[in-house]
């Protein structure tokens, strides 16, 4: 049962666009949809890619102000992608925040050592907290 919003009824007032671009790597379309709806409402430009492979091309096309990275993805996982981003000439200093449902110490340490600025376990943060953190990192 797909819950993807295609043509949505008019949403309550969205905030004015703030010109910031957030690139999100997330293969779960439930999450993807939530990100898109909520962040757009907050005034951000949002692009959700479902695969690690599409992150660099999308980032090269338009430099993101923040990348939200899931870890478990098909074809190319978040760790691989993170490595690529951080060794990319132009993109290495883009803030990358990992949002994943993996939560073991080894995963957190690995992500941080690969250059992630922060790490959050999706289930353990509220949507509002997500927005707040995004606001903080796109200051």
């Amino acid at each position: 049962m797909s819950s993807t919003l295609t043509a949505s009824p008019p949403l309550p007032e969205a905030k004015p666009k703030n010109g910031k671009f957030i690139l999100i790597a997330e293969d779960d379309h439930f999450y993807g949809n939530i990100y898109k709806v909520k962040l757009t409402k907050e005034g951000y430009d949002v692009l959700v890619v479902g695969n690690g492979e599409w992150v660099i091309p999308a980032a090269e096309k338009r430099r993101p102000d923040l990348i939200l990275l899931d870890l478990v993805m098909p074809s190319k996982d978040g760790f691989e992608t993170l490595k690529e981003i951080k060794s990319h000439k132009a993109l290495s200093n883009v803030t990358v925040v990992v949002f994943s449902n993996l939560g073991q110490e080894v995963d957190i340490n690995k992500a941080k050592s690969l250059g992630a600025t922060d790490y959050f376990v999706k289930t353990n943060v509220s949507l509002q907290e997500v927005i707040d953190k995004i606001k903080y990192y796109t200051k």
Partner: protein
Amino acid sequence: MPAHKTVAEKKLSPFTELSSPESINKLESHSINARRITYILTIVILLIIGYLLTLLPWKADASTHALLEFLASVNALIIGSMCLIKFYTRNKRMYLLIGIGFLGAAFFDWLQALTANIMLSSISSPLVLLHEWSISRGFLSFFLLASWALWYNRAKHPFKIPTVYLLCAIAALNISAFFILYSPDLALLVEIIIIGVFTATAIMYFKKKYWKWKYFEHWLIMSLLVAVAADSARLLSTVPYDQFFIAAHILKIFSYNFAMLGLFMSMYSAFTEVEEARDKIDVILKSIGEGVFVTDIEGNIILMNNAAEQLTGMSSDKAFRKNYTKVFKFYHEADKNKPFVDFVEKILKSGVVRETYSRILLKKDNGISIPVSISTAPVKTHSDKLFGCIVVFHDIRKERELERTKDSFLSVAAHQLRAPLGSMRWNMEMLLSGDLGEINDLMKQSITQLHENNQRMIGLVNDLLDVSKIDSSISADQPKPTNIAAIIRNVVKEMEAEAFTRSIKFDIKPKLIQVSNINIDPNRVHEVFENLVSNAVKYNRNGGTVRIIIQEKPDTLEVSVADNGIGIPHKDQEHLFSKYYRAANARAGAAEGSGLGLFVVKSYVEGWGGTITFKSTEDQGTTFIVSIPKNPKQHTLDVSTTNENRSKQSN
């Protein structure tokens, strides 16, 4: 009817012969038949000898008498001594009495040998000679009879050894006195009684069920039969030094010899039993699948089994008497360069009953390391004296494999469970915040309930992960020189984003802190302060402050983390550090926490040998004070125990 083995021997030991009930019955009947034949044969031979003697008139003299008595005395002395030795080593009291009997007989025979020449000249009647003979026989017969009583009643030993000696001494004196002092006129009667006693003793010893060449009781019976013959012959002697007189003395010596033979037999069987027992122990040890080695009190190996040889690659002969650290190369799993030693010394010093270690590696001769689990225990003798340490270790590669499989399964399972729960949560939060359109109160109520239940499920998944992580002690202690202040600053940095959203400020004193490095696991330090600081933020009021003060003291580093938030209600303060406990006001707040955090913090801090205390007032705030020794203890975390100590409070 008591069994023929003593109570002590009934315990299952390598000395026990295990045979089935049917074979025992067959053995019984077979052995009784065999015995009957032997005794009957003996009696027949004795009768024949007796008859032959009547046909051989013969007379000897006093010096022959003296010689024979002297020989008898020497024999009896040897037998008596051997019996006493057997008594001292095996603690079977029957041998004490038999020994006394023979020693007494030796003494009296020796007296007779000395006075043999004198005797003849002062004899008034043959009865006097008979009286002399009967002293030694009477003494022996009494004590052999008494020994049977102890043999029969092996189970009950109400008297302690000194009492037994006293009683024996008194008995010996009395019996000697009786036989020495009784009137020679009664000698005939006494002799007949003595014969009766010997016979009765022989019959009563017949109660022993099994018959094997090695059992002393059967030689004793033989000896008694010959003794009866000896006394009978003596009675038949009418003239001093006739053939019956001499035959009696010779038969007396033979009866002593049967007893001596019996003692030699049991000595022989004792030696072979020891060998058999040793073999049995060897076989048992060989078949134990785990590596076993035993050290003496200095840590030198005195015993090692096959499995240990295989697991280390060194043979037990080479290992014998070497210090165990030279034979077994154990290492801490966490730090492959750190040898795991001293665990034997620890047992030997403390006498602690058992200690188990996991997360240890054993390096084999060929360089390969295998994970092992080690169990140690002290070895004490019956009198509770420590004589060494026994170590049992086994290869846990399979268990590790299982652990890894379990861990990866958990990781995958948690992830899979979290995904739907998480997106459900955010969807509901979007609905509640009106992002998807206005909702009426009823809708709001319903969605709120959905959200709460969802939160519960998320919490459960988190708890499951936390518990399994801790119980399998994945986080091994890896101490290294660490700057604790730097770690605290990192923790604060990580919390900044979250604090920022609620306008909570951090205040770290002093601003520039140079603390000395402490040899401690940085990950654990991080976890401790992450817990404390995140609590200080979580349970703080909006716009509040988290104040961290780091103080270096001579032996410790003291850190206080204070917030001015909701505080901890007094009644919850007791349980604060227990596994899974969250105070009621915390649960009511929006923040989640599994409750395990402070439990882990306390375990770590106390594992280092430090202390953690707190002060709290509801609605005003909480201050936690952690004191870490500069020389922290290194322990592997054992959080799986249900040791829930009450938290300490200051004020």
